[in-house]
């Protein structure tokens, strides 16, 4: 018997004519680790949600979805919880309670599980996932990786026979992603739990998966795992960084730490912490970026990349040391979440917001930007109705319209599929061609390979090494493997 079976499923969202899923038939065997691959907007989330009626989208459904042989729509709440668990994408939005123990117990409380049984399940799940040291922590203080482990734990505690995960690692850095996948793999192999994982970047999961399906044009087909494996660490735009030292911006690569180049940005022995009782985030950090250079900052989550960008931007002042920025009056910062930039009701208004205040562009440039974004036909759409990738591109386009001399980007490709990452890379390269200096923080090696002249590794609050990007990636033990590509 299959754990999950979609039998000729066609689905169209309410109010739309065009179905997002077309006659999808697939069966996931019991105990499988199945990947559901496809670009953003291909219908992966819709397909997964149809297997969990509590979160199923509103629309017209034909065909049947069965979990362990039973139509999921006929299951009551308790039976549904035993059959299928669901983990969402955002580590923040899916958290409900304020403490780790309460979050783990939340689902069990809802199902009226008696307290002794609840204590046992919570204790066993926390032990299994190694959560003991942070069991009593507050959710708000957890890192993104731990939050996602907690999301998994709170579902595992309900002991479902199958677990569905919608892009669970897209917001995590590569090291944290591997740690999460290893836990998921253990649950799959040791507990016999069926795993169905929807992703637009299947590369890192291939070593764990037993089968894979691809959704394209609303239809699903089973594919061999090897078909999804990226061959090498490839460039997003087909143009890798030149090995001769020239850069994608056309000029010669400038290595700003060389003494003959006068940097546009420089940090000299910068120390920073958020609170006088807190640990140092930046400890004696030195950095020099030359005019027109595209510098990538790489490093694990929490190593201080975002803080470094904010110090450069002048948003945070160093506690010790000096930060110099020759472009302080002509810069733009793209934060990790584009929603911190999107302020208007329509896409067009969004792009027009800084037109008058900057005096650098008008309606014609906005029309061209809408064309580039593929939104020329729907300028009245609310930015929140766009996909994550489109929101990121819209925010970036908004910043680029004011033609800043310095562009600061914090994880610009986080959570984006390959097409959106390539589009972001294209726009960053275009800005660099126009003479802008770019400083970006990222985990995305393929993106670095496509856009950056130089790369710096940030570790323990300081810049550990700075090299030409191609050289850095070639020599990097952490970033040179294909796991990071997709």
């Amino acid at each position, binding site marked *: 018997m299959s754990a999950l079976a979609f039998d000729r499923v066609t689905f169209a969202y309410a109010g739309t004519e065009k179905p997002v899923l077309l006659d999808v038939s697939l069966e996931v065997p019991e105990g499988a680790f199945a990947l559901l691959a496809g670009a953003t907007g291909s219908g992966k989330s819709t397909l997964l949600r149809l297997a969990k009626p*509590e*979160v199923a989208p509103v629309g017209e459904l034909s065909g049947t979805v069965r979990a362990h042989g039973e139509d999921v729509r006929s299951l009551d*709440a*308790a039976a549904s919880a035993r059959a299928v*668990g*669901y983990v*969402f994408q*955002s580590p923040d*939005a*899916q*958290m*409900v*309670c*304020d*403490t780790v*123990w*309460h979050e783990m*117990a*939340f*689902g*069990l*409380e*809802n*199902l*009226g599980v008696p*307290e002794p049984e*609840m*204590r046992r399940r*919570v204790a066993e799940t926390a032990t299994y996932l190694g959560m003991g040291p942070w069991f*009593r922590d*507050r*959710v*708000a203080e957890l890192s993104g990786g731990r939050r996602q482990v907690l999301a998994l734990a709170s579902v595992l505690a*309900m002991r479902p026979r199958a677990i569905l995960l919608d892009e669970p690692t897209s917001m995590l850095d590569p090291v944290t992603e591997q740690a999460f996948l290893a836990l998921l793999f253990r649950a799959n192999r040791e507990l016999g739990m069926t795993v169905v994982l929807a992703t637009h970047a299947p590369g890192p999961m291939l070593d764990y998966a037993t089968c894979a399906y691809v959704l394209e044009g609303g239809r699903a087909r089973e594919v061999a795992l090897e078909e999804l494996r990226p061959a090498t660490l490839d460039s997003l735009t087909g143009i890798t960084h030149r090995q001769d030292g020239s850069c994608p911006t056309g000029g010669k690569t400038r290595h700003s730490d060389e003494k003959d180049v006068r940097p546009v940005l420089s940090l000299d022995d910068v120390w920073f912490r958020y609170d006088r*009782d807190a640990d140092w985030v930046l400890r004696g950090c030195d950095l020099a970026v030359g005019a027109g250079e595209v510098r990538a900052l790489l490093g694990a989550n929490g190593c201080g990349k975002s803080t470094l960008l*904010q110090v450069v931007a*002048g*948003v945070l002042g160093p506690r010790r040391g000096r930060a110099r920025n020759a472009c*302080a*009056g*002509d*810069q*733009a*910062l793209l*934060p990790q*979440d584009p*929603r*911190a930039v*999107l*302020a208007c009701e329509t896409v067009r208004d969004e792009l027009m917001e*800084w037109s*008058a*205040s*900057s005096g*650098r562009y008008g309606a014609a440039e906005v029309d061209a930007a809408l064309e580039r974004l593929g939104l020329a036909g729907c300028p009245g759409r609310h930015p*929140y109705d766009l996909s994550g990738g489109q929101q990121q591109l819209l925010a970036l386009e908004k*910043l680029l319209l004011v*033609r*800043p*001399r310095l562009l600061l980007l914090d994880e610009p490709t986080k959570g984006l599929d390959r097409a959106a990452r390539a589009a972001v890379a294209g726009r960053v390269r275009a800005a660099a061609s126009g003479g802008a200096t770019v400083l970006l923080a990222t985990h995305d090696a393929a993106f670095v390979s496509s856009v950056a002249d130089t790369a710096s590794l940030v570790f323990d609050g300081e810049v550990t090494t700075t090299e030409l990007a191609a050289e850095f990636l070639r020599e990097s033990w952490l970033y040179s493997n294909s796991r990071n590509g997709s």
Partner: protein
Amino acid sequence: MAVKRTIAFDACHATVPAALFAGAVALAMLAVHPVCVAVSLAGALLFSLLARGGAATARGLAWQLPLLALVCLLNPLFSASGSTLLFKFGPRSVYLESLAYGATMGGLMVAVVLWFEGAAAVLTQDRLLALAPRRARTLPLLLGMAFQLVPQLLGRSREVRATLSACTAAGARSGVCEALTRTSSMLLTWSLEESIERADSMRARGWESGLPRTSYRPERPRPRDMAALAGIAALLIVTATCAWAVCAQWRFYPRMSGLGPWWACVPCALLALLPAAAELAARLRERGRR
């Protein structure tokens, strides 16, 4: 520096410190008597030093002591009562009684603040919310979500404003009102959008399943907690009676009088010093076992 951890109340059920601190706060707020306020302030200060550490207490006192001094000095300017004239300040007469009343009220305010800070160090939010009665099982959940939302909104508001200030190429900044409207509307849209996924996450884990909810209690009351509660209740009754007696006799105006018997203040001192004594005893006991 790491925050000091309290240990005396870690091993008790949360109702024990909740009852003790509620009593200490009530005593500090209601017993307007110089001796009661002095012992309450001393007890609160001692506990703060032990539980929160010298640095955190000193940082608090940096604004609490000027507040005390301000209340003490301002009272004679508003209330020219009393019989012992100290000096004349322009047309106002400053009396000893009026100054003493101001000092008592200032001390009361600082003591209350210190007791709340001490209670917050012991009764973390989750321990406090777990005290909600069984009939109101969704109340801790609602309060917990609200408590999470406030710091999250503040953090995002900082992020939105920092991003805007970092985008200097966008030109001149808008006015304060306009910036406030922009930020609040952004935060509202952001939160509403996220609430859709949170609601899905809740439903996916059986919320609105129609089944009767149970609750996971991280702490269970033990017989020794019951004994401690009974002891605290007895102390609170005796303290309330004695405090009422001494406060009823005491007069600030026209002349400070009616101090009452010294032993009537003993229960107040016991209650005020009990948290610090318990903490100290627990530490000494732990050190002795190493």
